[in-house]
């Protein structure tokens, strides 16, 4: 009996602590930040933009009213948060933040000072996506208020970023990977690229002229080589997420467009699947016909690095499914299938080599993290650091080999020759 009383008393005492009353907040007290934008300030050091969720029923209602965008200038990120509390009747919190968007200007100056407080923060998760915009982050977030398909940008960004697995046109870039790239002696960081649709008549004219100058083969080859804001389109969301921003240490040094980002994904082994359009392998048909194949990365690339001779060989292992053969040639079988496989392999190897050279000559930064493969060549950490991979990377001779095999041919086994062709 005595024991039972003691037990009940202790249980009652425990309840006092279990309510977590000191750290409790009513849900309607909190202002959930879902997107964070960082620009250079005009009157203070930074201009911080918060997109806040306005909780309301999921069904019905206007997407624009589902969130509120505010900008505040302050000496730091957290000072901006405090200042915002003085004109918003909510306590702002990062616990549901989804992405951090920084302006090009900030990224060029160096991101380390902005990433550091985010990594230290108990509210911000390292899984937050990190993006760079060529314009102002505040304008982009404001423009994105009019969502078309979702009510909240958090869900919108999640779906957008999942495209890194389905199209490969953007990388899965988060704070975690950026921070590790920043601190590793074997790689350099990257971020995703985000921008707004450019609607000026000048831009439309410029695009038109550019397209007129290109022949069909060039159009096919350059088909996805867009940066945000360059996609020729009408309708959809105000924002575009395509390509990546490359960094040397913490400073932005250049961009990769959508097409290049795909090869970046292939070379890092992060490409899952995506359809690629090639000009027809037959030189006579190349100008008018295309072949579309869905490419799947069979396994991670094999990277062999010869440190003495400064040579690097990368082997890509790809599989594919034919989605379209416009010429009507029977590329599904026999000699033509092998010809197609060789052609795709050569094309991918060529483009991948070109991209690596760009990072060697233009960026002088190993954004692929090839240097991480050299870890096994050294016995100790000091030896590896002393080798100084990042400074030697631009001098390496690179060769890329691709093994591509057609595994499936869609719903068709072969392309039957049409009567006209027979005749």
């Amino acid at each position, binding site marked *: 009996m005595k024991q039972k009383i*003691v*037990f009940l008393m*202790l249980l009652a*005492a*425990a309840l006092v*602590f279990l309510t*977590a009353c*000191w*750290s409790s907040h009513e849900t309607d007290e909190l202002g959930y930040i879902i997107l964070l934008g960082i620009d250079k300030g005009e009157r203070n050091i930074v201009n911080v933009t918060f997109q806040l969720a306005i909780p309301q029923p999921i069904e019905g209602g206007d997407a624009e009213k589902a969130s509120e965008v505010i900008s505040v200038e302050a000496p730091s990120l957290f000072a901006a948060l405090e200042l915002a509390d003085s004109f918003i009747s909510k306590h702002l919190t990062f616990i549901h933040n989804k992405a951090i968007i920084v302006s090009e200007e900030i990224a060029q100056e160096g991101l380390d000072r902005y990433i550091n407080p985010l990594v230290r923060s*108990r509210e911000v*998760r*390292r*899984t937050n996506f990190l993006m760079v915009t060529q314009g102002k982050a505040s304008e982009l977030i404001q423009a994105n208020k009019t969502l078309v398909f979702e009510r909240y940008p958090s*869900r919108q960004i*999640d*779906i957008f970023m*999942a495209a890194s697995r389905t199209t490969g046109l953007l990388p899965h870039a*988060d704070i*975690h990977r950026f*921070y*590790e790239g920043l*601190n*590793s002696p*074997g790689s350099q960081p990257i971020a995703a690229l985000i921008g707004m649709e450019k609607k000026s008549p000048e831009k439309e004219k410029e695009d038109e002229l550019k397209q007129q100058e290109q022949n069909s083969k060039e159009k096919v080859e350059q088909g996805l080589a867009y940066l945000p804001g360059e996609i020729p389109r009408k309708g959809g969301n105000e924002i575009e997420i395509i390509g990546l921003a490359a960094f040397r240490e913490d400073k932005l040094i250049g961009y990769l467009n959508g097409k290049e980002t795909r090869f970046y994904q292939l070379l890092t082994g992060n490409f899952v699947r995506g359809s690629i359009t090639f000009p027809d392998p037959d030189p006579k048909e190349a100008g008018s016909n295309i072949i579309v194949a869905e490419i799947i990365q069979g396994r991670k690339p094999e990277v062999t690095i010869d440190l003495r001779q400064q040579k690097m060989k990368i082997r890509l292992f790809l599989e594919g499914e034919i989605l379209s053969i416009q010429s009507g040639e029977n590329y599904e079988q026999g000699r033509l299938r092998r010809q197609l496989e060789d052609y795709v392999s050569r094309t991918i190897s060529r483009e991948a080599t070109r991209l690596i050279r760009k990072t060697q000559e233009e960026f002088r930064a190993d954004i692929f993290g090839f240097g*991480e*493969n050299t*870890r*096994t060549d*050294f*016995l*100790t*950490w*000091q*030896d*590896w650091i002393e080798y100084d991979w990042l400074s030697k990377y631009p001098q390496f001779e690179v060769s890329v080999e691709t093994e591509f095999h057609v595994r499936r041919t869609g719903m068709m086994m072969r392309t039957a020759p049409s009567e006209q062709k027979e005749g």
Partner: protein
Amino acid sequence: MNKIRIGYSEMTAVLVILIGMKAFIGYPRMITEHGATAGWLLPIASGALALGLWLIIARLLERFPGKPLTAITELLLGPGLGIAVNLIMFCYFLVTTGLLLRIFSESVILSLLPETPLSAIAVFYLFGAWYALYYGVEALARSSYIALVYIGIGLVTSLAALFPYYDFRMIFPVMGFGFGSFLKSSVFEISSFGEVIALAYLVSYFSSSDRAKIKKIGVWSMGVVILLFTSMVTVYLMVLPYPTSTETFVPIYQLYRSIFLGHYVQRVEAVFVIFAAFTAIMRIAIGLFVTLQILKDTLKIPYYRPLLGLFSLLLFTIAFTPQNIVETVKLESLFSMYYGGAITFGLPLLLCAIAFLGGKGEKAK
């Protein structure tokens, strides 16, 4: 002689929690600080060394069947020096448990309750430990045995969920700071397994048939802990590679926070934190129990329950002695994971030397 008996599996679970709880706080960080990329090999090397030392100590226990280490110490060193040595061990367990109390409480502030006073959390932990011990060591041992299954499932699930972040290249260069440094760290890191010595103080809780298994319990529990430490550090290094691995206050929490398996499986750390908090209570209770057991046997006190309140207060005081969390973590790391081996393994080995060279012990005769 105690009437309470603890079974073989239950005692193994108690020891796994007592030694292995470090994996949930600073161990992965500290081991990569000392071993860099070789951090994942250190638990294997130091664990094997510690295992060897335990086998020697177990031989000493075999020489004095049914006697706890407190009694053996007094027999070998005489009452005066024996009590002094026993009190050193008592202080070791008291201080490490006190520091752990502070670290667990700070971890809760960091992860769940940022605005709650530290003292309130510490009191909550102490109440839990006090209650567990008041109910008795038998209940504590059985709870440990049951809890271990859930802790294991939780741990394996969480480590597997981090798979998208795994990068096997990050566990190289294999020798970290070099072979010399690796060897030195392996020797010092045996301290991380030092709590195995608690087994030698709990001899009276075994039935005579189970006493022969003490050596085996130590071997099994250390084997499980080596596996736990190695897998934890390997995953930690693959997800948060060196040198960023040395920055994190609570490595496991940082790992939990990194779980992202798409829109619907993210922000899941709250699930795992419950396991960690529960295990922390168990760890404090076991630490307090071992402390009191050593004191009880040294001072020949028949019961430990009347001391519970007093020692909870003492633990609370020790927990709040360091000025800040950085100081606490540093102290705890140095004390229980680096130099502590001098006490936990050093003193018993000294006794082994006296017993073996002097041909002392019942079985030796």
